[in-house]
């Protein structure tokens, strides 16, 4: 499962995004050029998810550009961005609720499948081999995220915490070069949060890919992140190591509350 992704580069350059009269992003820019866990924090409505949506192609910023490697991706459709190696999880979960966990992850493998519709439909030998190859990858993920007991459960019947885990598994199934996590621990209890935090660290250690993490739990962010970007009203107000962020007066004022 080890993939070395050094040399990966994501550049977000002065993004502007507005919905009617609401300015969501006002010239946000940052850069990632090595494997690191980057947390984006900020008060509710600051525009954190908007950044992820722009990177993954769900929103089109009106101004600015996003470079992934040498490709400009802010004009691309989401599925093309996914194919380039950017995977994400969602704040509200968007899985195939009528399918099993296994099928959800297998579906995520489609971008790595080489057989066409016909071969798959008739289920030729090479299509079977293809399935086995993909299944091995998916089983690795199931093992990694400790989901054996729910492998064959219909996703719609799973608990919220379990679904979040499936969502993470699906993002991993894309074998991304960069992983975007939108509040992976929202609504979880302490035990579940600890599990997810451990998984994030493990993913980072094994895959050595950059992870962009949006999270509200400050304890988690300070423990996990190598670098933190703080945004407020669509603007970046700080960018640095957790230690610096904790003492930055602008951040304390905007987010952590006055002390």
């Amino acid at each position, binding site marked *: 499962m080890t993939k070395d992704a050094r040399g990966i580069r994501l550049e977000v350059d002065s993004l502007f995004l507005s919905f009617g009269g609401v300015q969501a992003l006002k010239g946000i820019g940052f850069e990632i050029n090595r494997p690191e866990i980057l947390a984006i924090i900020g008060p509710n409505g600051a525009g954190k998810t908007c950044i992820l949506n722009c990177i993954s192609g769900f929103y089109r910023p009106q101004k600015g550009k996003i470079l992934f490697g040498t490709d400009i991706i802010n004009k691309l459709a989401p599925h093309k961005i996914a194919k380039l190696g950017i995977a994400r999880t969602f704040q509200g979960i968007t899985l195939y609720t009528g399918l099993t966990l296994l099928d959800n992850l297998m579906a995520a493998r489609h971008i790595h499948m080489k057989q066409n519709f016909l071969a798959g439909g008739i289920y030729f030998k090479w299509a079977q081999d293809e399935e086995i190859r993909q*299944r091995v990858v998916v089983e690795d993920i199931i*093992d*990694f995220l400790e989901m054996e007991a729910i492998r064959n459960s219909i996703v719609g019947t799973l608990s919220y915490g379990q679904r979040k885990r499936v969502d993470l598994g699906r993002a991993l199934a894309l074998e991304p070069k960069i992983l975007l996590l939108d509040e992976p621990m929202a609504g979880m209890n302490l035990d579940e949060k600890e599990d997810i935090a451990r998984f994030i660290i*493990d993913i980072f*250690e094994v895959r050595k890919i950059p992870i962009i993490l949006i999270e509200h739990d400050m304890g988690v962010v300070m423990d996990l992140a190598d670098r933190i970007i703080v945004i407020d009203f669509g603007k970046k107000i700080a960018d640095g190591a957790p230690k610096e962020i904790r003492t930055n007066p602008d951040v304390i004022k905007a987010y952590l509350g006055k002390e």
Partner: protein
Amino acid sequence: MGKLDKYTATELDSLPKWLRHNAAKYGNNKVAMYYKHKGIWKSYTWQDCYQHCKYFGLGLLKLGLNRGDKVAVIGDNDPNWYWAEYAVQAIGGIILGIFVDALPAEAKFIIENSESTYIIAKDQEQVDKVLNFAHQLPQVNKIVYWEHIGMWNYEDPLLISWEEVEELGKQSEQANPDLFETNIDMANENDYAAFLYTSGTGGLPKGAIHTHKTIIACGKSVQSIFPWSNTDNYVSAYSPGYIAEQMIGVSGGLMVAAHINFPEKPDTLNENIREVAPEFLMFTGRMWESLASMVISGMLNTTKLKKVFYDFALPIGYKKADLELMGKKPNLLLRILYLIAHSVVFHQIKDRLGLVHLRYGVSAGAPLSPDCLRFFRAIGVPMGQALGFSELIAASGHLIGDPPDSETLGRVAPMCEVRITDTNEILVRSDGLFIGYYKDPEATNKARGDGWFHSGDAGTVNERGQLVFWDRVTDLLEIRGGFKFPPQYIEGKLKFSPYILDVMVIGGSDRDFVAAIITIDFDVCCSWAETHRIAYTTFNELSQKQQIIDLVSNDIKRVNRVLSIEQRVKRFINLNKSFDADDAELTRTRKLRRKYIVEKYSKIIDAIYSSQGEYVMDTSVTYADGSNKEVRTNIKITDVD
């Protein structure tokens, strides 16, 4: 495996010798272990197993393990657990197991008490647990782990992976090809081979010392109850740190060369059993009970048609089972009806549970409720109970083919003697009797000073030679007027209710009646509440809903009918939480720690016996990370008429 042929004739007085014998006899022609990993069942032949044990054993030897050193294993049931045991015993070490859910302090106590020099921990979780204290214990030389997830960046000098140990072993073998075999032959049958820690029902756990000889004797004793063969499948479900798994899976399975199957993860056990459909299965009473209540609660939620079939079939099953228990033969009509019921309903249920091929299901550990046994007999699952202790197994059991009297623990085992003292204590003696408790001569003397094991359990042998278990001698309770009652017996009956997870029955010479503290089965009650449109938010709230209280109350009434008047439960409460081993209310084998519970809930118990209708309770809950929280609840006290 020509090289091992010369060993087939040696006397098989230790497990490693048996392993070598099987490897020589079957080589790569027969599978010894199946193990589900990443969704696929993988197999290991006897030859594979022998090689792993050999290299691992030699690796430990090279790391400096001396004969007589103790090695602690903490991890789920995997082939590695079994291999670790055979390997350690082969090079003269002593093995001991720790339950996977032991808290760091509990694990530390056992490792310290046993003076273990090597620790084998499965994965990151267990390694973290052990690293909490390993550096405080100077005798610990190495910690071996066998699962790599999460272990990439650990740089502790104590840590070494299983593969690295095997690699060291391979190097040693090259230098000295017969080293492993010589080591196996150095063992004397009276050498210590394993410490089996008692579950600590009566205080701190004690390490019961077993030699190669007692282990072999215990393994054979299990076979005398259930003669199994090398075509049988067994699913390893319970921790090998516990004697029943030791004597059935680890030694019994080795001696008969059966197929041992290992579940993928502890929580996939039921699914994996279904895939394997084993011939032999050992569960604790509690696991059987949860399986039964799974069926019963499943039937509460099924379609109307299925319910009709089930309601038709079950009474027929009960009738046949009851007749058989009384030693009578069912008449032709009943046999035909049963055949229909079995093929239409029971077979499907057994198929869902993976019990279609089961030739013997045994319940050990804690007594199984007679109702549960009766239920499984009714649906055609051949099962019985056995009695064993960490100090000796098996003392008694329902022999295969015997109709199991559900009120007893079966016949005194063929290789065992039982005596009942004047105080109704059960004494047992056999070749499998443990040598003593490690570093505790006083307890040893008390438990086996006269050559008999003083079990501390009260019971009797009935006229048919079947052992009847009442309770711990010290746990027989009485109420005012000297009326004795066996709390576990009553609890077993109550626990058969699908709505009740755990229950503790209380009394006392200063109390007028028997009362009960109930913990509800949250999952079952949740789905009941859902179908009956009852709103609730937490366990706390659900447990105090009048409708749930009524459900429990009805089941208590049903049980009361079969009890004598003094033994009946007159009043109860639904506790606002489950009993939990992390809160020290249960032992790790999930037995109630009565003294502690009585102490912890003394105020509420007083309230039950005074005539308050409600009690305001503050409970302290310990979370898995060790933190505490106070929870306040109004607990309703309910009379049963």
